[in-house]
């Protein structure tokens, strides 16, 4: 049953697996990382237990609520990451997560994250009163290798047609996304290049298609 208000949940009560709290070292470097719409909890194994059969158990907590919640796919696991995207999908909530190390019947205290706020981390989030709308602007950089000139263009839809290109010229493109709102990190995509035909008469068009997943990966056809 939920805890009375104004009581911070007891760390040990949040882990159902019966284990003895035996001063095992905690996992370290526990953080959420948010890449391309996915919220991944990552951590480093506890120091000093190399070679031991140590597993980890993850719990997460919604700021302002009362109960620690578990994810069965991340109980007693050997890997040091857990995908909590589904569990942290409400962008207006803030979250904590904990990981404890278990060795046999002994367990460590839980190593806890700071307060994780998907709205600040995720690329692509602006919310209006009733819904979440995703407004993406792509900053496309085009490099004319023959003229050694670069220029850029901002577009909001997912296809850009560049016309009137010079014949027999290698053009290279890379794309970075930009989203209004809190400053967010967005790596540019890989560079993609294409050569225009030798025949000057063909007013060649290059279509640059952006995949939906950011950072945009670019296909030049």
């Amino acid at each position, binding site marked *: 049953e939920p805890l009375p208000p104004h009581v911070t949940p007891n760390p040990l009560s949040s882990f159902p697996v019966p284990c003895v709290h035996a001063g095992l070292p905690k996992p370290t470097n526990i953080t959420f990382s948010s890449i391309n719409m996915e919220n991944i909890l990552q951590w480093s194994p506890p120091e000093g237990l190399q070679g031991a059969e140590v597993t980890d158990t993850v719990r997460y907590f919604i700021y302002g609520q009362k109960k620690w919640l578990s994810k069965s796919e991340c109980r007693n696991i050997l890997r040091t990451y857990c995908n909590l995207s589904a569990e942290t999908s409400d962008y*207006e909530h803030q979250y*904590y997560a904990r990981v404890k190390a278990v060795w046999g019947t002994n367990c460590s205290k839980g190593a806890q994250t700071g*307060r994780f706020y998907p709205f*600040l981390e995720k690329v692509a989030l602006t*919310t*209006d*009163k009733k819904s979440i709308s995703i407004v993406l602007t792509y900053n496309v950089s085009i490099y004319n290798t023959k003229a050694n000139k670069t220029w850029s263009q901002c577009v909001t839809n997912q296809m850009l047609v560049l016309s009137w290109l010079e014949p027999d010229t290698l053009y290279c493109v890379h794309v970075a996304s930009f989203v209004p709102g809190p*400053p967010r990190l967005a790596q540019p995509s890989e560079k993609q290049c294409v050569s225009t035909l030798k025949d000057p008469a063909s007013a060649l068009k290059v279509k640059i298609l952006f995949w939906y997943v950011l950072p945009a990966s670019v296909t030049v056809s």
Partner: protein
Amino acid sequence: GQEFQFGSCRVEGVVLQELWAAFRAVKDVVQAQDNITGVRLLRKEVLQNVSDAESCYLIQALLKFYLDTVFKNYHGKAAEFRILKSFSTLANNFIAITSRLRPSQENEMFSISESARRRFLLFQREFKQLDVEAALTKAFGEVDILLTWMEKFYQ
């Protein structure tokens, strides 16, 4: 250019990214001091589904509370944690906003302003149930929730 439009209240001359940058610089330090993770002051009942008409009254009440109570009494902690610069940026931009808000005082707006006041009282009541220092730390740590809501009116 971008400006705040809280219903009929329009506010120019505030760059929301400056506020986000100031809070981001101190978020981890401030939120790490808040151990009462089971309480959220700016709950969904306070900020969800606020009508445009209500928003001017609510933002005025919230910012005034932050200026008069939260920032005023949290200043010592801000100096202790060496975050005065960000603290000053947030406080002075809140001043810039409140000084430009002109909520309508007409009678037919009474029910709307009352609805906004009830939302604010939800927040204030929750604040008062906590120990003062814990409440100040929690309120300052929830500025990102406030900025997120304000972002919805930044056009």
